[in-house]
């Protein structure tokens, strides 16, 4: 037995081994072949056993020869195994095929009513100016709905608001302003509050609902001016519509404010150039406001008289219709939609 014979045998086993590795049909089969050739009792290991019969000077040479082949075969094994694993994996993946065009398991998405959404939106804007929300009862005493707001009994300004009565002394509040009076009576100035909620007018047609929503603000400070009021409303308009829209005041009359103004904002749809939404005027009426009438501040004991003393509290107030704001913001075509609660309508306000 000499080294060249053994070398030949190694070569034969090596070649054979490469051939069968390559031909292996699966990674299991390949593993079995690996055991057959490279295992402890494998063909290559058996050759290793013959080393003792070689002369001493040939032993290292033979050892390194067989190790080189062994290493090469192991590399070959890894290579083929990777390939076969990939095939197996692909087979498994194929078996796990799903029609991914099938619909997702239906999980309902809810929605807030546009009135709720717009209310929260408006409150968030005024919160940044330090205003906080107050609410109140919907069945209100005549005094809080009218008289405390400088609307005496048998006064023509009562005709401005068609009123639902519950009894001689109780009405369904015609505006959110009674909230102001309750706050003025129970909390101390200075104040910045937002009154929010449902109001009622006995008036129903294509553009009027008998039960709608209002939001209003009241600020009480030692110094309050029309400029402050316009600054506040103008800030709100820009934030609410997210556009640089101009704000315009027009003289008007409300019994509880003097001076009073109607608030117009530039039409958000045409940016003031005139369109069907704003009736070609470029402006849209959004609410009313004014400096709180000194008579109102006296009636609710904020000031002791109406003499406009230097130390007196002063106040401004403003109010908007929430449906109107929603109509402008979302392009809702009719007030009818607000109370129909058609799910096709509601589900649009995610």
């Amino acid at each position, binding site marked *: 037995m000499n080294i060249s014979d053994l070398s030949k045998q190694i070569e034969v086993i090596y070649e054979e081994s490469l051939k069968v590795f390559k031909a292996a049909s699966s990674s299991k089969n390949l593993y079995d072949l690996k055991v057959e050739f490279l295992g402890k009792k494998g063909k290559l290991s058996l050759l290793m056993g013959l080393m003792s019969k070689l002369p001493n000077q040939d032993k290292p040479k033979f050892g390194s020869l067989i190790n080189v082949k062994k290493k090469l075969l192991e590399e070959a094994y890894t290579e083929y195994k990777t390939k076969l694993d990939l095939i197996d994996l692909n087979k498994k993946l194929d078996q796990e095929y799903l029609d991914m065009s099938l*619909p997702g398991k*239906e*999980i309902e*998405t*809810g*929605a*807030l*009513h546009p009135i*709720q959404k717009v209310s929260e939106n408006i*409150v968030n804007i005024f919160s940044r100016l*330090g205003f*906080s*929300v*107050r*609410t109140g009862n*919907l*069945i209100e005493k005549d005094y809080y709905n009218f008289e405390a707001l400088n609307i005496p009994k*048998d006064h*023509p*300004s009562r005709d401005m608001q068609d009123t*639902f*009565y*519950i*009894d001689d002394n*109780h009405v*369904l509040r015609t505006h959110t302003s009674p909230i102001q009076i309750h706050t003025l009576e129970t909390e101390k100035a*200075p104040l*910045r509050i937002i009154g929010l909620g*449902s109001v009622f007018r*006995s008036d129903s047609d294509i553009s009027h609902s*008998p*039960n709608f929503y209002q939001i209003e603000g009241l*600020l009480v400070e030692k*110094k309050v*001016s*029309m*400029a*402050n009021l*316009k*600054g*506040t409303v*103008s800030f709100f308009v820009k934030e609410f519509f997210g556009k640089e829209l101009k704000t*315009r005041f*027009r*003289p*008007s*009359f409300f019994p509880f404010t*003097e001076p009073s*103004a*109607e608030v117009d904002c530039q039409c958000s749809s045409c940016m003031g150039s005139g369109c069907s939404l704003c009736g070609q005027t470029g402006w849209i009426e959004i609410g009313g406001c004014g400096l709180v009438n000194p*008579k109102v501040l006296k009636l609710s004991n904020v000031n002791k008289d*109406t003499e*406009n003393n230097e130390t007196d509290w*002063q106040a401004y107030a403003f109010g908007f219709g929430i449906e109107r704001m929603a109509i402008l913001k979302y392009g809702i075509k009719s007030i009818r939609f607000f*109370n129909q*609660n*058609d*799910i096709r309508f*509601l*589900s649009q306000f995610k």
Partner: protein
Amino acid sequence: MKISFNWLSEYIDLDNFKSNSNELGKKLTDVGLEVEGIEDQKKAWENVVVAKIITKKAHPNADRLSLCQVKVGAETLQIVCGAKNHKEGDWVVAALPGANLPGDFLIKKSKLRGELSCGMLCSEEELGLNKTMDGILILQKEDLKKEESLQEGKNWSDYKNLSDSIFDINITPNRTDCLSHFGIARELSCVLDKTLKKDFPAKTISDKFSAFPIKIEKSNLNLGYSGCVVKNVKIKESPKWLKQRLASVGVKSINNVVDVTNFVMWELGQPMHAFDLQKVNKEINIRKAKKGESLVTLDNKNIEFKGGELIIANESSPIALAGIIGGLDSGVNKDTQDIFIESAYFSPSDIRKTAKVFGIQTDSSDRFSKGSDSSILLQALNRACELIKDLAQAEVEKDIFYHKPPQINNEKINITQKFLEDKLGYSVNMKDFDKWIKALGCQLKVSSSESREVVAPIFRKDLCQPVDLLEEYARLNGYDKIPEVLPSFTGGPGKHNDYYLQNTRLANLCKNAGLLQAINYHFTNSIFQKEFLEFDLLHKTKDLKKYSTYMGGDPVSVLNPLSGDLNVMRLSLLPGLFQNLIHNYNHNQKLGNLFELGTVFNKQENNYNEQNFLSLISWGNKETLWDKSKSPLVFELKGRVESLLKSLNISFKWKVIKDLNLCPDFLHPKRSLALQIRGKLVGYLGDLHPMLLQKHKIRLNVSLAEFNTDLFNLAPTICDSNILTGKYPSVTRDLSVLCLKTLLSEDINQLIKKVAGKDCISCRVFDIYEPKDKEKLSITFRLVVQNSEKTYSEEDLQLLQANIFKNLSDKLGVEIPSS
């Protein structure tokens, strides 16, 4: 209020605005007289022309129609006409394609029974005129003569001299001085800085009035009364100019005398009345009506007095409801010879009350109840007398009756530059202030360079505080001068109130739970509400109290509802949500989930309670098996509610309603639950009663729930750290039992938990199986246990399981399957 441009031009020079009425409208709006619309008469009659009928032939296919060749200018058009009163050579009025007649009647070219018609020949009614002849309007010879330049094709508005612009102005209740043409002109003279063209002299006060006695009951303190006699009036049609003035503000012409009284009201704002002197019969009494007296009013309605209403009476009976409407009998008619003309001032609140009681609203009552100008009586009287003298060839008697109204002069108002500047937020030039205030007719005294003493004229009763003058200055100076400055704040940070915080939190949680928010009216139809809440086949007479177990009160009615559909405040949100369901169902929305957060109302004696409810309604099943879950719809709703309550950290308990008397009628008696929080009933959940579904023809499952959110007490979140520190793993065991269908799964669950004791992490129904032929049900519970001292071994579990099964079978009679 309607204001005519042409009429207005009689008092103030408006030539600058002649071809630009919009500009004048803008000026008015800018000072607070909001112009809501402008009707341009020229535009309104576009494509309506005077025409001559050249030939008239029978329509070949219709007996009642005729074919007319009509000359409408250079061209001749064929128009099919259905009237019979016209002939060849007649002058008529033709509406050509593009014309828009009153009532939004658009004229188009069309074919009538196969013949082309290029427009329409108009009747008087179609032109908005009073009807004097049948068929179409044939222009009469005398009309034609006046029109020297009559031509075919001449525009109808030119022919009729309709070149006015009518402003529709929204006069706010404080500006009673602007309820007339002269009033608006006066305001414009200030705004445009122009002098008025006309003034109105007052009738001279005479020493005596001898025609007949006029007595004023002493109690009528706030009253002014003037009048005089005009003899030999010739009652006839009014002249064209007067008719046109009245027509422009929408007032119908009656006769020359009545028209003058109306004209003066629209001119000066002072309501006038003319009585037939014969019917005044010896005397006039201005007094309170007595109970039982009655009056037939001008519009032929009989009113019965309750007593106390202010009336004008003759010797024996009422002849007018003072300041509101005259009597039919004492009115001016074609046989009237002598008249008494009244110009008065009545207390606004008296007129308001009386007009409201009888439900009568007239132009007169409207002006008196808002507060008329008490200083103008004699000017108006003089104006009316002069016009009647002129138009009815009458003799005006010299003596007049005059009871002076209480002339309350406006009080002095002191105002300073600092006040103006502080409140407006910009610097004020006092010269401008003086200019505007004087232009308004105020008396002005300069007390110092920065302070003024002002007295407003009587017709501006609304100017009584410094802020009123401030507004006058600001609006005349222009609201656009007000700068925009955010206010500084001296207060501390505020806090939203609890209701708002809870409401928004609930709304957003419900939204995140996949529900759509509904908002319904707070009032509803009382019958629908009753029949929903109280639905019960056998106990029809029960009152609503049963549903009030947790509300405890009667429904609140609206005294003056708009309709029966909205006549009672809602007791519950569910009837409204059910109506929404019906709407959606009828619009083919067969699957949906709605919630509503809102106020419900009830009363106890005379206290009105408002409570805040949360209600939910779900209908329909998932349409596809792919999406469907195994448990019935009502458990989906229950799950949503549970997750909502857990999100709010509320500890709650469901109670199966076993006593039928405690189950609301609208719920399915075998599928209903009550919710308890801290032992208090807070609401209900269940399926809708099948009879309600049947009644409204709804073929779906409907589940609903309603809770009083005022009783939700939100607990703060507290972190339980022990849950993370258990050293030993938890183990899971499924326990299957067989039990009668009537046994509550929750009772079994509770017992399992009790036996497992403090080791129990959770126990929940895992599966339910219902064998077809058996009365029993197989329920599997999934129990999770964990011990703090050691790992649960299989033996421990066996022991626990045996203990649980023993307890279940001993206490609940549950069978343990042998498997």
